[in-house]
């Protein structure tokens, strides 16, 4: 069953609205988490290479959290759907690479990488907390 799910995922190039995107937010050295508001800073969504996120694919939250923990020491993990990203006028794209088959980018539009300050702010306020280290 796992193998079939994996095969279906590997053939899937598009990002359906219900697909969930996960973002790792650094919480220490440096910190990009706003403690008082319990959400990521919009600074975490300002990236000259596009906002780096991972799609859920066929995985469970627990496996996704573990995957991020292997890559980052001090991190919180937040999520939002592809549909929400599109509703906020961003352009999520699947950016699979040899080291991460789940990798996606959130861009401003098809031809523009840089998000505006207000879009970065809206994204940071529309995430759901999946996991935060104690």
């Amino acid at each position, binding site marked *: 069953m796992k193998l079939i799910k994996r095969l279906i995922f590997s053939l899937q190039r598009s990002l359906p609205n219900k697909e969930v995107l996960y973002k790792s937010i650094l919480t220490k050295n*440096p910190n990009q988490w706003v403690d008082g508001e319990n959400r990521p800073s919009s*600074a*975490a969504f300002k990236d000259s290479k596009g906002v780096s996120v991972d799609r859920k694919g066929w995985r469970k939250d627990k496996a996704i959290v573990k995957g991020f923990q292997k890559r980052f020491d001090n991190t919180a993990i937040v999520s939002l759907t592809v549909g929400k990203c599109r509703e906020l006028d961003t352009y999520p794209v699947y950016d699979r690479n040899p080291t991460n088959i789940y990798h996606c980018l959130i861009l401003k539009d098809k031809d523009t990488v840089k998000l505006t300050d207000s879009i970065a702010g809206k994204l940071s306020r529309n995430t759901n907390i999946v996991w935060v280290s104690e």
Partner: protein
Amino acid sequence: MRTLNNIEIAAPLPKFAEVSHSTADNTIMIKLQHRWPIINNVEAKKTGSNSIESLQELKADWNGNGAKAFKKQLLDKVKLFVDRISYHTHVFPTGRDSVQLEFYKPNKEYLELEISENEISGLHSYPTGEMNEFILPNINEAHKKIDFFFTTITPQ
């Protein structure tokens, strides 16, 4: 209703209004300027976010997405800027060669300044959810923006 020296003030006043009574000419002075918490201690200003010094230690790819290490020139500019601010600020690095300063008011109003080597841009978010983006020509204007943010009461 507030009472001052046995004088009842009938006008509805916000909590932050300062009322004083002058016995010389028997007048009542009402000061309506809002006072947001001012923190002059430089160390305290860094609470809850990153110190400029800690950003200096970040190596290339600190965000796992190929971000560059911060140039000393930019961090010096930000440090100079932050040292002149007397309000509490949160400092955050971005993945686009800039440092972001965030300011909050208790009414959920929010100001953000993004300082890069060549530009200062920002965002003012109002309690209503409305957002206003802007670009500032220089550091002095950015300081004025912060002062204006903290000394102005936005109707809710």
